[in-house]
């Protein structure tokens, strides 16, 4: 009998809403659980978050460990680490996956050190090898190399997963998870971190990660005026607007909402159009899962053309207005 069994995922919630990455983790976890014929459990930590457990069941969890307490209302690493440790000791999972969000990336390494196990970071793929070991695919050097990382002698085998990279399962209405309550044995005065304020912006528009079409611009767009052309093309297509880092640094685009790449967002649209983007690895890794990639650049040697399905070499001020016209005519 294996002592460590089951796949556990961290179902991150902020302000009472499940983060999308938590559901993506259930998607990954379900596949592994079915393959290994093991159980899939989720940890849910917060205050008044009980109803979210049903949602986790509908997205694939067999079991939900629920820690619900006013002390857990807002994330803090010390409180959450204690509870993660508690659940790990109770459940003895074989595998633990967390999202590589700001909170997940803050919590996961602490938990790994606490329970004395290894952690592979920001994985973009997972597998079970022929010896039954959990393998995480970890990109490095801006995405130019990919390492397969294993943790052969420590449990749980831990990893964080890149948000937006994996698909969530279809929601199965009425699918139920068993809920296991986790007691909170500490008090406010036992914690070293005090929350003094929090702010989460309500998102008005659909996040870029969910866009079916993405039009992205790079430094080659050339300026704020030309950036409007990028936005106009996106408007015609009903697309989200993305960017590489330089346009964000220049103030044409917003770093947090629009930057695509290794240290930004991962998009997976059916159609991606890159304008004035040279095609550095850090950016390309973020668009890798696009179905069709189109590149428009005036430099015929720009590396993005190699990574594109269709390329147009030319001046964007000439091309984009024609493209907008052609798309209007066709639709």
């Amino acid at each position, binding site marked *: 009998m294996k002592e460590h069994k089951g796949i556990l995922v961290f179902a991150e919630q*902020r302000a009472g809403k499940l983060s999308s990455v938590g559901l993506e983790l259930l998607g990954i976890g379900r596949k592994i659980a079915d393959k290994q014929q093991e159980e899939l459990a989720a940890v849910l930590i917060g205050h008044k978050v009980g109803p979210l457990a049903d949602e986790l069941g509908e997205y694939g969890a067999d079991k939900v460990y629920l820690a619900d307490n006013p002390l857990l209302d*807002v994330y803090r*690493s*010390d409180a959450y680490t204690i509870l993660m440790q508690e659940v790990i000791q109770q459940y003895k999972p074989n595998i633990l996956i967390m999202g590589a*969000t*700001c909170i997940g*990336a*803050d*919590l996961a*390494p*602490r938990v790994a*050190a606490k329970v*004395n*196990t*290894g952690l592979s*970071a*920001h994985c973009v793929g997972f597998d079970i090898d022929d010896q039954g070991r959990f393998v995480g695919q970890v*990109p490095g050097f*801006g995405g*130019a*190399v*990919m*390492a*397969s*990382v*294993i*943790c052969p002698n420590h449990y749980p085998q831990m990893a964080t997963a890149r948000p937006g990279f994996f698909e969530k399962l279809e929601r199965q209405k009425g699918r139920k998870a068993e809920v296991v309550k986790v007691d909170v044995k500490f008090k406010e005065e036992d914690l*070293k*971190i*005090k*929350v*003094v304020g*929090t*702010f*989460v912006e309500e998102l008005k528009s659909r996040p870029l990660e969910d866009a079916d079409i993405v039009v992205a611009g790079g430094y080659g767009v050339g300026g704020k005026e030309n950036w409007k052309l990028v936005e106009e093309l996106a408007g015609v297509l009903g697309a989200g607007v993305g960017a590489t880092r330089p346009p964000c640094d220049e103030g044409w685009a917003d770093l*947090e909402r629009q930057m695509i790449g*290794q240290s930004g967002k991962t998009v997976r649209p059916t*159609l991606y159009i890159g304008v004035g983007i040279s095609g550095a*690895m850090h950016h390309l*890794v973020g668009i*890798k899962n696009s179905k*069709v990639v*189109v590149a428009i650049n005036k430099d015929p040697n720009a590396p993005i053309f*190699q*990574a*594109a*399905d*269709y*390329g*147009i*070499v*030319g001046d964007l001020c*000439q*091309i984009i207005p024609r*493209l907008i016209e*052609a*798309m209007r*005519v*066709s*639709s």
Partner: protein
Amino acid sequence: MKPINSVVCIKPVPDQRFWDKVSLDKKTKTLRRTGIPIALGPLDKNALEEALRIREASGGKVTAISMGPPGTEEILEWAIVLGADEAVLLTDRAFAGADTWATAYALAWGIKKLGGADVVFFGNESLDGSTGQVGPQVAEFLDMPHVTHVNKLDLVGEDALRARFHIEHGFIDVEVKRPVVIAVEKTINEPRCPTLWGTIWLRERKIIRWSADDVGADKAKIGLPGSPTQVSDVITIELKRKSEILSGEPSDVARLLVQKLQADSVLPKG
């Protein structure tokens, strides 16, 4: 105000301008980095800057620490030129091949040997691996609380810090008693530039070198043997697609592209 002693943990990373020269040894599955200069990571500069600002406000000492082969001294020299009081290099063959767990363990013992710290600073993530894992793990080994993704930091009261933890589309403000581990983001400050005085200062300073035995680290917990994770395979990524270049007059090319995209059913057919 009580003086505050800070330790800034610095990671030697291959200079980003030379990343395309990183190649893969297909036999050993290791990366060839020979001839690629190492550099001080951009976020490490922010971490150092924040420590220097605290020293300016409260007095105390700033120590830079790193782990790596002897050549790593160069980046610690930079830390001294920028204003660190002292610098320590943990260097020993026994440290080689460490994952984040074993790296954090070694750094924690180095910091213990320094007599601890009031604040241990990290850049939120390194340029090459960008895992951001070592900070929280050092905190665990030193039994300190940690806050990462910090883009605002203030001293409060006699013995606490107020930190703004940046999360997706928002933030969490926390107060935490020292000693504490803080990992900073780029937006926290504008790192200073080196001065002539810094280079003169460097002449009077030596980089302290400590081996695994010097810091009293358990050999079973450092380097490759002490690392719970192992790299089982490394591949270079090719992101090649069919790369069909459409050429002609802009209006013809535009029409052609729309037809192709419709044929691929990624655009609705008119």
